């Protein structure tokens, strides 16, 4: 579904992503982990096409990531929700519905905003929403087109417990529907029982790319080893 080969991204002289390669197959739910500044957001923004790749290739479903065909196949939920100040919640969903040519988007949008408790905020302008509510709208916008590939950058930040649970449920559903999902996150427990595979980035490189099972067994097959401990173990400085 998503194929990244030798991707490098430089900001002027800073190498934010350094020659990484990985492939996500259909149905993969993959966690992209790593300490702050590891290059997770840069990787995702480059896949989305907001940043130019310095080197390497990215294809989505066989198409180059900046082509229109590729863009039809994925959606993106940014790290910081930025909406149109002067559009209402409902108009944002309508806008996305039109932009991605979503069939029956009204029905789907209604279901989504109900799940995220936004129904009473439907006609509020985005500039009147709190940050958490903006994040919810931003997630709804990412879910509405029901693409094959979802790119989430820290989706849980700022959400209330109910929305976090709802988001996790949605991830499970996406997994059942054989969708492909790439989630960058710090909240390790939020993806612990969800991802089949984790990628760990550090200083622009992928230092671990393993199935969850394999990773656990590698560290002594101890039921009590949490993802957090694994994470701290692999990212610690030598």
């Amino acid at each position, binding site marked *: 579904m998503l194929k990244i080969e030798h991707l490098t991204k430089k900001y002027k002289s800073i190498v934010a992503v350094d020659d990484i390669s990985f492939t996500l197959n259909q149905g993969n739910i993959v966690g992209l982990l790593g300490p702050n500044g590891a290059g997770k957001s840069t990787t995702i923004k480059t896949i*989305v*096409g*907001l*940043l*130019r790749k310095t080197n390497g290739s990215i294809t989505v479903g066989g198409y180059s990531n*900046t082509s*229109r*065909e590729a*863009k*039809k196949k*994925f*959606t*993106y939920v*940014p790290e910081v*929700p*930025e*909406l*149109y*100040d*002067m*559009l*209402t919640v409902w*108009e*944002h969903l309508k*806008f*996305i519905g*039109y*932009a*991605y*040519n979503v069939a029956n988007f009204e029905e789907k949008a209604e279901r989504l905003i109900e799940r995220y408790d936004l129904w009473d905020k439907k006609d509020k*302008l*985005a500039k009147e929403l709190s940050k958490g509510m903006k994040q919810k709208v*931003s997630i709804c*916008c990412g879910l509405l087109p029901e693409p094959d590939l979802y790119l989430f950058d820290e989706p849980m930040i700022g959400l209330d417990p109910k929305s976090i649970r709802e988001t996790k449920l949605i991830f499970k559903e996406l997994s059942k529907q054989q969708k492909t999902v790439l989630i960058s996150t710090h909240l390790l427990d939020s993806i612990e029982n969800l991802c089949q595979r984790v990628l760990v980035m550090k200083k622009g490189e992928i230092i671990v790319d393993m199935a969850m099972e394999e990773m656990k067994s590698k560290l002594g097959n101890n039921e009590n080893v949490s993802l957090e401990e694994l994470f701290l173990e692999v990212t610690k400085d030598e």
Partner: protein
Amino acid sequence: MNEFKLLTKKDGWIIKNHFLEIKNNPKRLVIYLLYLIWIGSLVLNVMLRYRHPEETNMQLGPQILGAGFVGFGTVFILYFLYRGTKESSTFFNMGDVHLLFPAPVSPKKVLVYSMAKQSLLYFVLYGIIVLAFMPMIMNVAVINMQYFPFMYCGFIGLLLAIEPLKFFVFALGSKFGVREQLQQVILALIAIFCLYLLGSIISAGNLAQGLLQSLNASYLEYLPVIGWSKVAFMTAITGYSTYSVIALVLQFLFIVCSIVLSYNAADDYYEDILNATEKRSLRKKRKEGSEKAQRTSLPFSKRKNVNVSNTGSGPWAFFWRSRVEYSRSDLHPFLGLWTIIFLLAGIGIGFYGSKQTDGLTPLYIANGIIAYIIFIFSAANSGQHELTKPYIFLIPGSNLLKIISSSLTDIIRMSLNISALNISLGILLSAPPLAILVMIIFVVSFYILNLSSNFLIRIVFPNALDEKVLYPLFLMLQILLLLLPGIIVGGIVGFVYQDPLLAFAGISIVNIIIVGALLLLSNAVFVRMEWK
């Protein structure tokens, strides 16, 4: 759905929401009404002048206007072209970046739509600038209103060309990796322009005459952009010719072409505009008072490691912090670029003023203008204050000290700058030391009153911050109220004794009394303040 339809729909909703907002909150109308009144008064002013043209005995008027147009226009265009090699212009906001760009839409169509939209919008909005300049233009030249549309389009045609050009330059630079070469070309153009001016001045043997002649040279009228728009602009003053129409058409063709060229040059411009868009949205937030301004730092002092020793603990941390910020962005915690500018201004005004008059009028006028500018800026830069951060509310210590320590650096800097200006100016005008001292105290007390307004507004109009559009207005009103007593007293004293110096002294004394009272009340002020 097709891109143009999608974007028109979105903009339609936005316009609708603006109207709904006004309907739900008619208070907003006040601000629009004020704008309307202002524009109306500008138009009225122009019309009155047109009906009763004052005798303009400035024979050089048209020439000065033409030279000014070409001179400023060229500087403007070259400056923005140069900026274009470093940063793109943007036609987007962060909503576009996150919702529109990832969507399967054609980046080229999105760009053309946004450029065209912005150009149309600015075509109307920039009209205000033209209106504001009109009285000045009519002072020096007689205008033929029949050709006013030419004047308008010529002026605006120049402004409209800037953003697409800047975008195009950046797109070229990043697409073909020729940023440095472009930079050199533009620097060469700047050098040619300067040499041309210098040559003409030397051959004319007179600064003013050289400038007037070289900038009005008829062959310049065939230069793209600058020449064309100048011809159109001057039609209403120097008369109509067929070339007026040709020039105007050429100018607008040029704008259309630069949009079309940008369309062709740009297929993956998303990253290029990212920086500019982020900056713009930050600027917008800052205007609304919700984000603190970053100090723009001088190029040579970027990321400098600074070492500022501590002067005290508790509330004095604010004093330390602001000195650190200034030493990182400027030459010295207390002295900087502005000190030099003020010093030079003082010397310049002093030389010029001492030739014109024997009195102290230049001293008064210079300080009056500075006070006015301080007033305007403090109403506009509402966000630039420690109060937008929570720390001033959290750090334990006396409220009085907190207020003083958080403003002290700014006050010291302003005092030094004002002293640089007044001392150099005063010496050149051979003003008595007392007069210099009074003027320094006048401006500084004025400045402190403006600073304290940032605190006061939060109790006088506690909801002002929520009314983002109205906030600057409230602030201005409040500052006026604060200044009123001083101005009244100063006015009376000055009138009775017929001495402007006494008037300034009166204002300063009353200002100081008010500042003192505010400081005494600082505890009462602070307990009522909320962090928003």
